[in-house]
């Protein structure tokens, strides 16, 4: 790694990395939310089954 001030390409890489990581983070949050929704849906399906069955 270069010790002294980062060279130009490292700034550019840094900027693009930030954007990329942010989008990835957002995807992770959505994935977590989807898991929660799936779990809730499964619970409700159970409840409906119990009710009808």
């Amino acid at each position, binding site marked *: 790694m270069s010790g002294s001030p980062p060279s*130009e390409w490292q*700034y550019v890489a840094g*900027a693009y990395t930030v*954007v990329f990581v942010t989008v990835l983070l957002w995807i992770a949050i*959505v994935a977590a939310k989807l898991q929660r*929704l799936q779990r809730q849906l499964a619970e*409700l399906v159970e409840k*409906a089954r119990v009710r009808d069955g």
Partner: protein
Amino acid sequence: MTPRLKLPVLAACSTGLLGLALALVFFYAPTDADQGFSQRIFYFHVPIALTSYACFGWGAWKALRYLRTRDERADTESYVAIHQGVMFGALTLVTGSIWAKASWGVWWSWSENQLVLFLVLFLFYCAYFMLRFSVEPGSARANMSAVYALFGVVLIPVSFLAIRLSQKFIHPVVFNSHGPQMAGSQFLTFCVALAAVLALFATLYQVELAGKRIDAHLRELRELLT
């Protein structure tokens, strides 16, 4: 195109465009004569900023629709758009800051009108969320959020004007920000990147909306079953 196809198509488009944009930025666009390699940040920094404006504008439009129609969906759409806008706005500030550091060696510059404008807007729209958290969900909250969103979109040009005026007594304008006209190849790269980021917003927006809709349906279902 049926609603079910819309999201995958949108996602595919934005992935394609983003890939193309990245390729153009790093393999096609020439190195800028004035600003060197770090100018390439600009190819995403400005589209992200423009997309942020688009988000706030879209959010304000949906807010207006809500006030007219009282349809709760419009409130959700407005909220999601503004939420995305703040996300892109934060990215604008971060990438702009990195660009400032790469170009001029400072992490922040009050002379950069766009950065300062985004700071003001960021403060304004973060307060939007504070407002929403502070009020119980319901029509009162939706009304207030909508009015606030309208104020925000009007504030954008007013603030921009104010910031330009303020440059005269804040700081002598030292740095030359965007340089002369872009060359053809640069402009093409910029346009593709703009399309890519807008497509990304559209995709994220639809995904988030879908999530919220499912949430609402599940809640309704739970009430019906218990």
